[in-house]
């Protein structure tokens, strides 16, 4: 059976045998960097075409269908178009911060990839505080967005950035509390341990109603965190032209756009890891033969399948719900989601201590 773990050990062994240790390590770093860049580019292309196809499917139209078979190369053509565009810096802008902001947003998106387990034994850095690391690093992207909005010297940009900042910091609390309610069950922040603790079933099914409540809260809150509709106030195109990246064009705009899609992928990957078992195949308690059949599907397919299911869910929201007003948005978080998730966490603690979960 094909597995990414055996592939990595094969490459590692070969490197260690052929080269001295220092050079082998250097080659390993280069491979990791190139793979991360390749994953970024591939995800950008796939998610953009997926977004447009899902939108078309929901609205009963064809969507992009001119470039390549069924329009599959549309996003590659868009990338070429964006490279051909001139990247302008407005005269009134704070030039240094204006050019720094896309780099910060990209760096954050790249750094968060480190602890995510893509398949069994396949991750960049198996850090023991994985979940805390992800929530710490991902909150830095607010700084990049505020920087972009403020330095543009444009009213739309500043308004979009401020809204985005208020929204992202608010919903971070709900994300944190719903993540904590799973940590209470696993007793570990390590992503690998969290996945292994779901060997006999996923937490969404094992931990009764509190897990389902925290899953729903998690999905709502990450939709707001990534500035997706119905919470896309920061770039509400009908009122703020493009929000915080109004003044960006060409490749710098493309970087913001890419980082946004990568962030969606990352939050969905975290959601899949915590609630749906990450790369763990679908297991039911002690049904040995059923579990064995499920094990034949490679683990990375499970991971990407679950992640893309959650991404599809978030894309579905966009065409189902109308946009909220800024006061409604903050009310939803502070008056409903936050108290509910606090009570839910207490319920989950009781479930964990009493051992009522499976």
């Amino acid at each position, binding site marked *: 059976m094909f597995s990414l773990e055996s592939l990595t050990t094969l490459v590692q062994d070969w490197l260690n045998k052929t080269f001295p240790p220092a050079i082998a390590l250097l080659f390993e770093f280069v491979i*990791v960097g190139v793979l991360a860049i390749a994953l970024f580019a591939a995800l950008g292309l796939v998610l953009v075409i997926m977004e447009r196809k899902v939108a078309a499917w929901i609205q009963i139209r064809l969507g992009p269908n001119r470039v390549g078979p069924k329009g599959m190369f549309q996003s590659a053509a868009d990338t070429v178009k964006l490279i051909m565009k001139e990247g302008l810096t407005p*005269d009134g802008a704070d030039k240094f911060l204006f050019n720094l902001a896309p780099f910060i947003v990209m760096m954050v998106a790249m750094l968060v990839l480190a602890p995510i387990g893509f398949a069994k034994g396949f991750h960049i850095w198996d850090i023991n505080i994985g979940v805390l690391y992800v929530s710490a690093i991902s909150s830095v992207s607010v700084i990049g967005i505020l920087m972009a909005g403020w330095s543009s010297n444009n009213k739309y940009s500043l308004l979009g950035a401020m809204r985005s900042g208020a929204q992202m*910091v608010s919903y971070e609390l709900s994300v944190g*509390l719903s993540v904590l309610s799973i940590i209470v069950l696993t*007793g570990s922040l390590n992503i690998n341990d969290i996945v292994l603790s779901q060997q006999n079933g996923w937490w969404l099914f094992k931990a009764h109603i509190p897990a389902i409540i925290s899953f729903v809260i998690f999905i709502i809150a990450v939709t707001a965190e990534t500035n997706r509709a119905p919470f896309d106030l920061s770039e509400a195109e009908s009122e703020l032209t493009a929000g915080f990246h109004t003044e960006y064009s060409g490749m710098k705009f493309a970087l913001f756009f890419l980082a946004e899609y990568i962030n969606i992928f990352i939050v969905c990957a975290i959601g899949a890891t915590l609630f749906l078992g990450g790369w763990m195949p679908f297991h039911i308690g002690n049904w040995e033969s059923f579990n064995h059949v499920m094990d034949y599907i490679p683990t990375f397919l499970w991971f990407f399948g679950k992640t893309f299911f959650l991404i599809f869910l978030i894309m579905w929201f966009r065409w189902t719900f109308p946009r909220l007003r800024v006061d409604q948005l903050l009310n939803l978080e502070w008056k409903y989601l936050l108290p509910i998730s606090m009570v839910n966490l207490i319920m989950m603690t009781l479930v964990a201590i009493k051992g009522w979960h499976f």
Partner: protein
Amino acid sequence: MGAAYLLVLIAAAIAFSAGGIAIAKIFVKGSTNPQKGQAYECGIPAVGSPWNQFNVGYYLFALIFLIFDVELVFMYPWAVVVKQVGITALFEIIVFFFILFMGFLYAHKKGALKWI
């Protein structure tokens, strides 16, 4: 050793972004036009500067967020050990939440959560 991978990832992000911008620079001819550098505002010249006073609502929400975020950081270690500590941890977190919730209610009563 693992921490070195973070440097690798940062380098990869910088290489990706800078490489993209550099490639775009090669292909773009570009022309000079004084109107190109203006801020976008409905097609007419921008009036006033955006860098002045701003709605106080954002500031109040940021302050309340700060309190809750610090609380959240305290809860990560608690969540890891809660199963070993047992029922005592549950009562502790209820007391913790109660104190926090009183502060939250105070902010709510003072109208900090009302959008102006």
